[in-house]
């Protein structure tokens, strides 16, 4: 009997999955129905056939309406790229083969439409699920998702709802379809855990956008957890603990508190300026790719946009973007970020990102080849359309423009010549624009860094693009995993080049920004600050932390740290030194760093 009593006390189970969205959630499990809708089979007579077809068409139309509504809502709340998931659903709905197959089977087999539709759907799902290719298997979830929606509209079952959800539920499910995830609002759902899925699955992407911790790919979580079980979900490390012991619970409550405190502090930082304790002010800006990203820049308290990548316009399409389309995007970004600045980088195609519509021949060394400003100068038709769009938008806010991958003053002059031609055209057309729009060069080629004294005389600002600068100065292909260990932002050669660019910029009284990954590496913030950097531009999420570091240190202290960093002979020594100093000066941020 004692045994019996013991077994009623639930045993702690710990599962390891794939971390999909960071953070800790502690709450009650809500096992989300995996029950399939199984239609009741029924024979039908010849005269019922046309009625069943009508029912099918109505269900399709109804589903279409639902999918469009979700797409609109998600695009608005989470950005267009999330909404586009649902566009694939529409294609399935409109598929003539699927519809024809259902109708002809219905006529032949004379069974109710639910039964027929489920049969056809299952046939597709089973073939696709056995596909070798992972990408293809991922499409199964799209088809299942929309297929179930159609079935539900046929059967008239209730939508899988969030009714009966406890407050602070952790959703446990085999898989979550995009439309499931879309229904979950922040507040009641505090975490997701699923059996399947990867880091880039829809669930993971959505969870990250909703800022809800998630762990995916747990394989057997739905077998282990019962409704109402207590669950700890650690989305940072990909761990789920079911029915935790008191010891674990205490540990995670403490950990969670710590994270929350840090977050709260970072939120407070949003409105505070990024200046050192001795009042040296720097700018902490955000990098964006889409106009939609502006929201994140603002919500993380970034002071402007230090890098607006414009390649997006050229992706996923078969024609070139028009001047008008670009103008509208630049204008909307300029208006929303006002009074702060936006640095628009002109088209930076090439290397690993060439697009079909441009018909660029394959090259032996694409990263050393026809790319970025080199490409733009060779295609003034494309380049001038973009310059026109930027100039026109400059009448509506504080725009700056920046050329990528300048390797010497010749290219800069050529680009500026085209720019003045465009300005002249606009003047003739009596179109408004900022005639003094600041023009900058992106310093990402060693030759540009070394001749930055010359370049500085001909531009209004520099922005150091460290991803390429590191790749070129260390001769390390940044997508080659075999030599990834050589890719070192703290390599003394890189630090010296950065210093040189900053010093040369300052000698000509122009500000120097840094907009590569390195700007977001918080262990290097103090060194970069000490080298005299004027602006950090990074992924918006890193903005509050960088501000916090800037505000924790004096400029004199930072300069000392930078000077010391320059004396080391290896990147590893610099890295260790930087982490150690950060740990001393801003201990609570460094805790996160050490994990």
């Amino acid at each position, binding site marked *: 009997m004692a045994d019996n009593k013991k077994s009623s006390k639930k045993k702690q189970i710990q599962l390891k999955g794939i971390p999909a969205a960071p953070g800790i959630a502690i709450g009650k499990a809500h096992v989300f129905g995996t029950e399939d809708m199984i239609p009741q089979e029924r024979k039908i007579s010849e005269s019922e056939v046309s009625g069943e077809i009508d029912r099918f068409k109505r269900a399709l139309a109804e589903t279409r309406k639902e999918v469009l509504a979700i797409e609109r809502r998600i695009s608005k709340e989470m950005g267009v790229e999330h909404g586009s998931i649902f566009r694939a659903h529409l294609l399935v709905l409109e*598929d*003539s083969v699927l519809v024809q197959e259902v109708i002809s089977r219905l006529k032949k087999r004379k069974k109710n439409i639910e039964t027929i539709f489920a049969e056809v759907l299952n046939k597709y799902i089973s073939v696709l699920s056995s*596909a070798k*290719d992972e990408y293809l298997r991922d499409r199964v979830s799209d088809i299942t998702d929309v297929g179930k929606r159609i079935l539900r509209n046929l059967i008239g079952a209730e939508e899988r709802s969030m009714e009966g959800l406890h407050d602070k539920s952790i959703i446990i499910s085999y898989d979550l379809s995009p439309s499931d995830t879309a229904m979950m609002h922040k507040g009641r759902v505090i975490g997701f855990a699923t059996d399947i899925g990867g880091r880039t699955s829809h669930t993971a992407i959505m969870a990250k956008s909703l800022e809800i911790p998630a762990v995916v790919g747990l394989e057997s979580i739905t077998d282990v957890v019962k409704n109402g079980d207590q669950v700890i979900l650690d989305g940072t490390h990909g761990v789920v603990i079911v029915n935790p012991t008191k010891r674990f619970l205490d540990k995670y409550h403490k950990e969670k508190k710590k994270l929350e405190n840090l977050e709260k502090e970072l939120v407070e930082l949003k409105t505070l300026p990024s200046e050192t304790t001795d009042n040296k002010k720097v700018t902490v800006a955000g990098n964006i790719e889409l106009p939609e990203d502006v929201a994140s820049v603002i919500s993380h308290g970034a002071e402007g946009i230090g890098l607006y990548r414009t390649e997006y316009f050229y992706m996923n399409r078969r024609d070139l973007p028009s001047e008008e389309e670009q103008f509208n995007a630049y204008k909307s970004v300029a208006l929303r970020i006002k009074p702060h600045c936006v640095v628009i980088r002109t088209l930076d195609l090439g290397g690993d990102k060439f697009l*079909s519509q441009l018909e660029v021949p394959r090259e032996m060394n694409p990263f050393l080849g026809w790319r970025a400003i080199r490409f733009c100068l060779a295609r003034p038709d494309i380049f001038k359309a973009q310059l026109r769009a930027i100039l026109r938008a400059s009448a509506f806010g504080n725009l700056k423009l920046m050329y990528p991958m300048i390797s010497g003053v010749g290219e800069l002059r050529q680009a500026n010549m085209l720019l003045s031609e465009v300005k002249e055209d606009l003047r003739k057309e009596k179109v408004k624009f900022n005639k003094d729009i600041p023009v900058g060069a992106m310093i990402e080629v060693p030759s540009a860094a070394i001749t930055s004294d010359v370049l500085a005389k001909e531009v209004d600002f520099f922005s150091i693009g460290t991803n390429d600068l590191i790749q070129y100065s260390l001769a390390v292909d940044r997508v080659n995993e075999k030599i990834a260990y050589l890719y070192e932002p703290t390599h003394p050669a890189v630090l010296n080049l950065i210093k040189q660019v900053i010093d040369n910029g300052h000698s000509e009284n122009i500000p120097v920004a840094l907009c590569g990954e390195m700007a977001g590496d918080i262990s290097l913030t103090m060194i970069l600050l000490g080298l005299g950097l004027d602006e950090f531009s990074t992924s918006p999420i890193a903005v509050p932390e960088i501000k916090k570091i800037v505000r924790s240190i004096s400029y004199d202290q930072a300069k000392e740290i930078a000077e010391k960093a320059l004396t080391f002979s290896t990147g590893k020594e610099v890295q260790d030194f930087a982490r150690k100093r950060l740990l001393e000066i801003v201990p609570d941020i460094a805790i996160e760093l050490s994990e």
Partner: protein
Amino acid sequence: MEIRKEIVVKNKTGLHARPAALFVQIANKYQSDITIIKDDQEVNGKSIMGILMLAAEKGSKVTIVANGEDAEHAVKELEEILLNDMEPEKF
């Protein structure tokens, strides 16, 4: 008019997901009937389901058949999608 063209798929991810969706959208612009044949399987080129079922991976041989007045144009444009190896998600 019937135009047939045999093609080796070059897309990195084969003929699914985005390229398949693109293929269907383009195919639907044309009046011609469009069929894709791989091995002994034949599917309607205007159907996303059909194309996904082909599971044509990179390097597989497929034949595009277009039948109708605008067949020539259709095959030309559709061929490009299969030969194109852009991978826009990696930006």
